[in-house]
């Protein structure tokens, strides 16, 4: 695989042992998955994805465009997707805000897209190189109207590679935008990364089909066949609620059915879309539910807990939306507490609480000072919860 050896991705590395930056691994995953169109506007902490794509795409017959802003970037990606390519862009919170209107349009016209949001702290400009997970609910509900969302969260460099691949796969299969969330630490960090380890997760080229107008046979009943710009037919593409001809409709029944189909094609496939991992399964009284870089803190806390004899399990979520309802409820039924550390003021904890509060106590642990939650902070909270229970 020659791409490993190209200049930017290789990044001064030994051939057999790689030290790769998260953002570069994301670009590599996209290229390996067959993404050949990227339009973007640079923004810290995501710029290296764009830099790598600018360097690599022309070398593999792809197209790279630096647009004038994020709105133009995502619109160019939608255009590419409607022409039978798969458009990808990468940004951070401020750019993600600008993209929201067009994301809704992409959902409505069923244009597959991959959007990478490397989150930084705060609203507006915030702090450019401080990690955050503040865009979680924006990734879910940033655009208006009832709509489906597929949102993945990466916690390390290998994740940036394989979840980008998964995002391409999901976008293409379900013909909808997929958002991959990372935070500044995951995007900027460099980490030992073995191609063999990642090889286990590599999807084969047979998993992808970029033929214009392609709809996976499994989903033929749920996904509407795309209209391809530049084809023989005269396609009509609109953000209005439309019927199978592509033209707007005001018919209540037709529009209800259409919107339901958009929603259901994602939520009915939770078993395929929800990626997760449980550590110490079934042995904890407290379950730490975490995603992104907080999942690394949670794992470290679990190792410390083992040493101290505290019963802790870790539910590491790679897919945040569609909500992994069954996964969360299964764990909720067997633990006394669910602790959710995240770099925001409890955005995902609210979702978990809605699903789990009938069975367990859900505790949110938010932090917004631009530093990661430490394993010790999680462990202290676990100790307090268990101690409180003992004293009752």
């Amino acid at each position, binding site marked *: 695989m020659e791409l490993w050896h190209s200049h930017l991705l290789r990044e*001064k*590395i*030994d*051939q*057999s*042992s*790689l*030290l790769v930056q998260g953002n570069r691994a994301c670009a590599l995953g996209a290229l390996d998955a067959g993404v050949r169109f990227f339009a973007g506007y640079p923004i*810290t902490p995501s710029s290296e994805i764009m830099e790598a794509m600018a360097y690599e795409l022309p070398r593999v017959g792809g197209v790279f465009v630096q647009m004038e802003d994020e709105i133009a970037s995502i619109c160019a990606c939608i255009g590419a997707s409607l022409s039978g390519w798969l458009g990808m862009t990468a940004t951070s919170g401020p750019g993600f805000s600008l993209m929201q209107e067009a994301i809704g349009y992409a959902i409505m016209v069923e244009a597959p897209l991959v959007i990478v949001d490397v989150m930084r702290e705060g609203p507006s400009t915030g702090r*450019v*190189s*401080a990690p955050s997970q503040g865009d979680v609910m924006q990734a879910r509900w940033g655009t208006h109207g009832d709509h489906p969302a597929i949102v993945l969260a990466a916690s*390390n460099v290998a994740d940036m590679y394989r979840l980008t691949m998964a995002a391409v796969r999901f976008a293409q299969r379900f013909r909808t935008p997929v958002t991959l969330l990372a935070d500044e*630490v*995951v995007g*900027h*960090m*460099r*980490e*030992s990364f*073995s191609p*063999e*380890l990642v090889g286990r997760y590599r999807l084969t080229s047979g998993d992808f089909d970029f033929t214009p107008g392609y709809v996976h046979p499994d989903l033929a009943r749920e996904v509407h066949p795309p209209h391809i710009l530049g084809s023989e037919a005269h396609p009509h593409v609109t953000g209005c609620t439309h019927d199978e001809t592509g033209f707007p409709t005001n018919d209540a029944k037709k529009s209800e059915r259409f919107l339901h189909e958009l929603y259901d094609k994602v939520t009915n496939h939770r078993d395929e879309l929800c990626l997760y991992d449980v550590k110490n399964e079934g042995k904890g009284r407290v379950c730490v539910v975490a995603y992104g*870089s907080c999942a*690394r*803190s949670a*794992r*470290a806390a679990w*190792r410390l807990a083992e040493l101290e004899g505290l019963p802790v399990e870790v539910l590491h979520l790679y897919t945040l939306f569609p909500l992994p309802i069954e996964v969360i409820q299964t764990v909720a039924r067997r633990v006394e507490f669910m602790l959710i550390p995240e770099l925001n003021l409890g955005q995902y904890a609210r979702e978990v609480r809605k699903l789990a509060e009938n069975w367990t106590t859900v505790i949110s642990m938010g932090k917004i000072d631009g*530093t*990661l939650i*430490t*394993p*010790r902070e999680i462990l202290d909270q676990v100790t307090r919860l268990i101690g409180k229970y003992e004293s009752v």
Partner: protein
Amino acid sequence: MNPSANAPQGVRAAGPEETETPRVSARVGLLADRDFVEVRFCGSGGQGLLLMGLILAVAANHDHRCVVQTESYGPEARGGHSRSDVIISDTAIDYPTLDSADLLVALSQEAADGYTRSLRREGILMYDSGKVTNPPSFPGMTIGVPFTRLATEETGRPQTTNVLTLGAVVGITGVVSVESLTKAVMEAVPAGTTEVNARALARGLALDYAEWMVDSC
């Protein structure tokens, strides 16, 4: 390519290649025996701190150890704060950012003032004594070397300060092997500067820390 030699610890693939053990160079110095070391480089933008972190991380990777490197910087191209953290471990690293440093290298007064409290009590503080004129109080081992002046004397280029400092760091602490550091530096420096950087590195490696020890306060 040998798939088992470079996989992070704990995920080694079984196979016939397993018998071949990677050759790891010897490390000598104050931190050479540690199975887990946290290093922080800090100073102001433009001093080459991010590159220092990257070179040390690449060198540790050459030593076949697990490594995570993270960074933080302000929006300015020059000036402002700049920081690069490297965690080196014999086992897989979960928590990716620095908890408390075993070694802090400060190249500006502001960085020394701000980050000395991120250092463990039994850690090592190294600073550029030409820039840090008012050293922070630290009870542990403290080493003040005029890195910028030495680099300018040695190569005529203050830009080689970061490579000289890395030489001193590795010569004194042995966090990575000299062989891997040399390889990593040579891979990282721009074409045409190999010779000056080699001189800066050699000067750094040859520093005798006893000469630059500062009395602990």
